[in-house]
């Protein structure tokens, strides 16, 4: 019973945190963009513009809602819902911190500790394509359709290299469960030191999966108006935009779990021997949260640094460079494992 209540609570907290992070990531993005371009950024709503996301949310809610008559109404509404749900669902298997203890019951800070955690992340992220594809298709607009086609082919192409780079991690840690993978990266014994190439491949693919610059072709304004969400307005558009930021946050958390030790940080062991486990859980959650937020910042940093790829360059990079590289990485990892495990 305690476990059930705890899990429900955890789900609600994660839901709120994801939405909050997404809302403030929009604010952060504008601030980061402004600072990188020697500007000030939003500063009117509240001190330092801190209420800007709320103002944006209210604006999106009260805007006129337009559903084109030529669109497929059901699918048109379904599109953003699927995108949002898949974005939120990914966080279910991430181990957010060390276990908590309540009246002798050990409570894992993880909604579902399934032994194929990584595959789950993969599956759910791929489902996100449906949100985009259905939205673009149902809009009955050529730009939306083109954007959706681009998005789906791009995500499918980059999933291959991403999966390949993951295989190397799985080979090293010998488990598909995210809990195990994180557990094995105690202290500073992070996977990044053993898998630098794999990390770079994974990171690049994560950019493509999140449709972020330099791979934001599905919504590139210069060619496709708004891409797959051209016809969307009001909060449906808001869902698409928010989901993108949730995706960024979650992929930041996944990257931290896979390559940067998740909630581990040097000194965690010492802390857990002297402090109350619940406090340690909160601190370790803070560590993972910081790492994830750093990646959110990193995504923004890249966005305001490099321009967009051309579509053929994108495909070439995915199929001709990243995929072979990731296969080489798998081979190298295998060779390394056989040599060093003897």
């Amino acid at each position, binding site marked *: 019973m305690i476990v059930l209540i705890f899990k429900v609570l955890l789900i609600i907290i994660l839901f709120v945190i994801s939405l909050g992070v997404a809302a403030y990531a929009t604010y952060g993005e504008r601030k980061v963009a402004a600072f990188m371009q*020697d500007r000030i950024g939003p500063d009117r709503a509240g001190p330092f513009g801190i209420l800007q996301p709320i103002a944006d949310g209210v604006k999106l809610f009260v805007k006129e809602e337009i559903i084109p008559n030529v669109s497929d109404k059901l699918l048109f509404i379904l599109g953003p819902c699927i995108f949002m749900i898949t974005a939120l669902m990914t966080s279910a298997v991430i181990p957010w911190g060390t276990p908590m203890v309540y009246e002798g019951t050990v409570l894992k800070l993880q909604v579902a500790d399934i032994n194929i955690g990584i595959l789950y992340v993969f599956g759910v992220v791929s489902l996100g394509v449906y949100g985009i594809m259905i939205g673009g298709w149902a809009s009955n607009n050529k730009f939306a359709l083109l954007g959706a086609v681009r998005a789906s082919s791009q995500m499918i192409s980059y999933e291959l290299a991403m999966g390949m780079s993951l295989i190397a991690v799985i080979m090293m840690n010998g488990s598909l469960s995210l809990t195990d993978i994180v557990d094995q990266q105690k202290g500073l014994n992070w996977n990044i030191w053993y898998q630098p190439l794999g990390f770079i491949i994974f990171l690049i693919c994560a950019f493509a999966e999140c449709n972020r610059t330099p791979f934001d072709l599905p919504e590139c304004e210069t060619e496709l108006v708004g891409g797959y969400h051209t016809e969307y307005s009001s909060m449906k558009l808001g869902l698409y935009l928010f989901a993108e930021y949730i995706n960024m946050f979650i992929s930041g958390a996944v990257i931290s779990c896979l390559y940067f030790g998740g909630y581990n940080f040097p000194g965690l062991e010492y802390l857990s021997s002297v402090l109350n486990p619940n406090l340690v859980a909160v601190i370790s959650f803070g560590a993972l949260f910081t790492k994830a937020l750093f990646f959110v910042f990193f995504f923004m940093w890249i966005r305001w640094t490099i321009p967009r790829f051309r579509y053929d360059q994108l495909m070439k990079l995915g199929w001709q460079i990243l995929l072979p590289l990731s296969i080489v990485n798998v081979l190298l990892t295998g060779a390394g494992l056989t040599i060093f495990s003897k």
Partner: protein
Amino acid sequence: MQRLQIKKDMMQLTNRSKVVSNKEMSFKEKLYIPAILSGMGVTFKHMFKKSVSLRYPEVTREFSPVYRGMHVLKRDEQGRENCTACGLCAVACPAEAITMDAAERNKGEENLYREEKYAAKYEINMLRCIFCGLCEEACPKDAIYLTDRIVPTEYKRNNFIYGKDVLVEKIDERIDITKRKKEYTID
């Protein structure tokens, strides 16, 4: 040969032009990542640079002395209108933006108008005006000046025809035009 060289030099007005080359990229360049990292360094440095933005309605940027904005019809120290409706500004105006009606000053109006003839109506069509400042240069009476005020936007075209009510400066709110005074106009 030498002439060609000179011609080439003359063509180059700035030293910012770059020769475009289609050379093959070296392996290091093809990796992209060093280039991306250095680009990220540049953007990161800019995060700590001073912002060039001004918080506009509260802080305004100072205009240069040669800025030519909305006109003002000046009064002299005693508050009398300088303009004598000579029409030279209207003649000088390349956009034909100025129209006026002259009237004779009556007895008892000496404290209103400096000269014996004055402009009963004086209108500038701000949509026609190109803010060239020729009216200011033409004026023999030191009466019209272009200031650093901005002509505000309007919804109706008619509202852009500014009459004396807008153009003539208020007695208690003098508009400073010392920046625009040229040596030969200071008397």
